[in-house]
């Protein structure tokens, strides 16, 4: 990291927010900037004659300020460790009116700037995508869609190509300045822009630099039973029953990878005692 501004503990996530990220694969941050800041970024993007590719941060330096905001850095430090790094690859998506929807996909692993060349990591957080939207994104402006929880599964794009709308898909209808942090392996897609306005989305990649030895967020071990309960019970999206136990195992493993020595200890507990079911009325 190059910035001198470090996130304070008030900007770190709490246990439930980290569990939310593990379960759903995304987290939204809305760093506070003056309202005109994002419209200025939008104007500077509009003025670019060509796509600067990885040099988008040089072409529009204001974008770096957003990614360096303590609220963004706090969230990234929470899921990647305080020594996380920024990858050289970044991209500005310019979604014109009339742009059609992408198909569901995971981002490619064939990116040389992914430092360790890792594959899909369904039980850890090695890399995240962070998408910045400099304008309000309405539902008809090509918002990013994602399938919550899909980062926990290994999938092949061609095998999943016949899916269209998912019952539990999430659509990022967000205000200007929102930062959508995604587990790198989550299934997502840009959707159709049927409005009359260009929708920009700038994407940066961030990576884990070292393995956790302790939680890098605001953790309280008194929450362990509650965390364990959520990792086993919370639904992200409807999936087949045969994947539920694998999903739950990966959730817990992911938590333990992030928490280091504060990992959860799997112990048998009776989940079924209590009230008898009541007769149907």
């Amino acid at each position, binding site marked *: 990291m190059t910035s001198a501004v470090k996130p304070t503990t008030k900007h770190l996530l709490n246990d439930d927010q980290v569990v939310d990220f593990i379960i759903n694969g995304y987290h939204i941050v809305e760093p506070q900037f003056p309202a005109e800041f994002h419209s200025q970024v939008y104007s500077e993007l509009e003025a670019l004659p060509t796509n600067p590719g990885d040099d988008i941060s040089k072409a529009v330096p204001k974008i770096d300020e957003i990614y360096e905001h303590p609220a963004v850095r706090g969230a990234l430090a929470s899921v990647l460790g305080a020594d996380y790094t920024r990858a050289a690859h970044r991209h500005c998506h310019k979604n014109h009116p009339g742009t059609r929807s992408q198909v569901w996909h995971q981002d490619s692993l064939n990116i040389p700037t992914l430092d360790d060349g890792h594959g899909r990591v369904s039980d850890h957080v090695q890399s995240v995508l962070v998408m910045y939207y400099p304008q309000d994104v309405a539902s008809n402006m090509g918002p990013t869609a994602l399938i919550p929880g899909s980062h926990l599964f290994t999938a092949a794009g061609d095998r999943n190509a016949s899916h269209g709308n998912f019952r539990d898909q999430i659509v990022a209808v967000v205000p200007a300045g929102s930062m959508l942090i995604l587990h790198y392996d989550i299934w997502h897609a840009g*959707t159709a822009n049927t409005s009359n306005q260009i929708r920009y989305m700038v994407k940066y990649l961030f990576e884990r630099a070292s393995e956790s030895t302790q939680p890098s967020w605001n953790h309280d071990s008194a929450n362990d039973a509650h965390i364990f309960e959520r990792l086993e019970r919370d639904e992200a999206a409807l999936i087949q029953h045969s994947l539920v136990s694998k999903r739950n195992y990966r959730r817990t493993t992911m938590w333990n990878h992030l928490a280091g020595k504060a990992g959860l200890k799997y112990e048998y507990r009776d989940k079924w005692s209590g009230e008898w079911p009541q007769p149907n009325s």
Partner: protein
Amino acid sequence: MALKQRLLYLSAQSTDPRSPAISQALHEPVRGTIVEIDPTRTELDYESVHDAICDGWRVVHFPDQRGSLEGSEIEVLGYQFVLEKMEQFDD
């Protein structure tokens, strides 16, 4: 007018046609159309494959039940049924 095949891909939570639908994609027999993710939709057209059958759709492909997905390296979401409806379309 010509009789043409509409295709509805419905992925269900299990091989039971009454299990809840997870996703859907409708392919209309009209050139130039594509199947898109619709960000304005809040629900699917049908609760289940059975629900679609009640609306006149006919199953033309059942999900493969020969192998378990358990342990598979590729974890496809849902069990996919393909349904058709033959209807008249303008050429």
